[in-house]
């Protein structure tokens, strides 16, 4: 089965080489007819979109309907956060949306439960061609493209108050900390949360490489250099303890809250893309956004490696109107729609053309996150047991009474990995 699909994919990919890369216009102008795909007449679809994007999605769905005036399509856009889309979908797939937006770490679960419909083979080639390779790999499991990349920015970046932390300071973690101390203001990162704390071992060269094991539920790691990872962890722990007066490990919403105070109590932090518009409004022209800084490990400056996620649009396997759903998902994830969302709600695109556009490059937060994406481990194929032990690793780096000598940290690292792998 898989082999057949792979072969079909390969053939189709060859075909695109001849056709060229003109896929974008084709989809956005309703040229999908060329693929032989037509929406079912009278299709009634439900779409799940996060609150922030509800209005944009509604408008875009109306535009989609207008492309097929004869089909009599009806679309209802319902608010549903991307974070628990999978949970809600699994609760009752039949009552869930036909087309839904979700964060890519839920892909495994959706696939295991058999509730996500792979991308139509006639659309897959074009989808693959127009999106960044990383976003496609985030939407692919076992060589099968399961969802349409929607954004390329589900990650975190360094945000700072330019009046306190200079652009030069922001290049190194030491510089940021020093500037924060000088201003006597906080630096906030949610270091006890697995989504953020994985950056500590990742910076040292640890990587996740999909899943393995008999049941395909065990996290696979790369062949990492243990000494290197431990040395990096040690460097982080040392900095956190040294600057414990300004270093606060707490949820990212405290960054915007602290910046909004008068006088502000926060100078910098590592914040998620979803808060970017709030923060930039607060700081105005002092808004600084950059990729994550470097950290000095035994004399060499190392770029901090983050976990980088993508938001995807999926089609419910139980949808009564699979063709219309596929076409809608394709449309919503197309270049024009991504660009519109980048403009209106500052969502970083996964589409390569859109990512290169003026709108995106001039948005500091999006470009910082897309820049950081180059130094990141994609958030794909993550075991459900990953987050809890990883959060614990982070906790043990900054806790006041935690030891951080090489032996302790080696032990911690090994235990963390063993716990993630449930060994």
């Amino acid at each position: 089965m898989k082999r057949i699909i792979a072969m079909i994919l390969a053939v189709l990919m060859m075909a695109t080489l001849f056709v060229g890369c003109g896929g974008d216009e084709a989809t956005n102008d309703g040229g999908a007819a060329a693929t032989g795909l037509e929406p079912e007449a009278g299709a009634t679809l439900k779409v799940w979109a996060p609150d922030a994007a509800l209005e944009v999605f509604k408008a875009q769905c109306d535009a989609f309907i207008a492309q097929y005036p004869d089909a009599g399509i009806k679309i209802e856009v319902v608010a549903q956060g991307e974070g628990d889309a999978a949970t809600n979908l699994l609760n009752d797939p039949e009552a869930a949306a036909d087309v839904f937006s979700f964060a890519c770490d839920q892909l495994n679960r959706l696939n295991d439960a058999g509730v996500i419909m792979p991308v139509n083979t006639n659309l897959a080639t074009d989808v693959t061609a127009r999106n960044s390779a990383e976003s496609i790999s985030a939407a692919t499991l076992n060589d099968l493209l399961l969802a349409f990349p929607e954004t390329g920015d589900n990650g975190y970046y360094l945000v700072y108050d330019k009046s306190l932390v200079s652009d030069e300071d922001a290049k190194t973690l030491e510089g940021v900390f020093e500037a924060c101390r000088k201003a006597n203001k906080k630096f906030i990162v949610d270091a006890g949360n697995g989504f953020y704390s994985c950056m500590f071992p990742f910076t040292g060269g640890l990587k996740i490489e999909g899943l393995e094991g008999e049941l395909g539920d065990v996290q696979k790691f790369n062949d990492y250099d243990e000494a290197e990872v431990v040395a990096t962890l040690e460097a982080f722990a040392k900095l956190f303890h040294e600057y414990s007066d300004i270093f606060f490990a707490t949820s990212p919403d405290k960054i915007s809250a602290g910046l909004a105070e008068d006088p502000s109590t926060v100078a910098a932090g590592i914040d998620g893309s979803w808060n970017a518009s709030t923060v930039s409004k607060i700081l105005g022209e002092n808004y600084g956004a950059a990729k994550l800084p470097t950290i000095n490990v035994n004399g060499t400056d190392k770029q901090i490696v983050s976990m980088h996620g993508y938001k995807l649009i999926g089609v419910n396997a139980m949808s009564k109107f699979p063709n219309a759903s596929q076409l809608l998902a394709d449309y919503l994830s197309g270049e024009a729609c991504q660009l519109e969302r980048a403009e209106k709600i500052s969502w970083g695109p996964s589409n390569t053309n859109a990512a290169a556009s003026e709108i995106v490059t001039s948005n500091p937060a999006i470009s910082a996150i897309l820049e950081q994406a180059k130094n990141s481990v994609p958030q794909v194929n993550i075991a459900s047991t990953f987050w809890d032990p990883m959060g614990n690793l982070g906790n043990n780096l900054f806790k006041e009474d935690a030891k951080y000598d090489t032996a302790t940290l080696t032990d911690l690292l090994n235990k963390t990995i063993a716990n993630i792998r449930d060994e």
Partner: protein
Amino acid sequence: MIKSYKLRRGLTNALVYLVLAVLGIIWVSPLVYLVLHSFRDEGLATVSYLLPKTYSFKNYIELFTDTATLNFPRWFMNTFVVACFSCVISTLAVLMVSYSFSRLRFKARKPLINVGMILGMFPGFMTMIAIYYLLKAMGLTQTLLALVICYSAGAGLGYQISKGFFDTIPRALDEAATIDGATSNQIFWKIILPMSKPIVVYTVLTSFIGPWTDFILAKIIMGDMRDNYTVAIGLYTMVQKEFVVNYFKRFLAGSVLVAVPISALFLFMQRYYVEGVTAGGVKG
């Protein structure tokens, strides 16, 4: 001697006042914090100082005007309706069960009392998905009726306190009525119920509060149907990642609004509550 006794009593009382005052402050201060910050005008989610610097009704007003994404007034009404219905049904169920267990004698009584007691001890999380699909089979998911059913279906299991209360009513009353030709049905409605005001009030109160506080089961049942959310799910949504930055102050305001009717009810009915629970909860 008498003087020193008086002095000692005065001293003890002073000490008691002191302890009560200190503890009272400790108990009330989080609520004061809640109320004050629900009126806070400046800042976003949290601030790093204790007392707000500026006050306004903005958070409350927004709760009722900015209803496009999170429709608080609608949720408030939903919860109120669900609470009213489920408290009527639950109260009836509790009274029926506890009356049967207390006054009627039948073969299965003892085993049922024991079964009823242990049923409440299973941690319920795994059962939620089963409840969901049962409701789905009845075509009730995502409706307020489903919530009413969930909140009142198991109510009969909370029979202990009111059974204890009924146990304290002398059986001679029933016997006299039986001799006068009254049926068990008449005894229940005409004799026992009129005497049970405290326990009825207690049951009504506890079952009325339930729907205002449950945020897990209700969320599973409602799924994406935001129009049918209750305030508990709504408030819990406001502190999730996507909302907390801009909605935390509204969360505080909403919490105050939820607390107001419940505390009013509580203060109003406190006397009955104490009587009911005293007579029922504790019979030895």
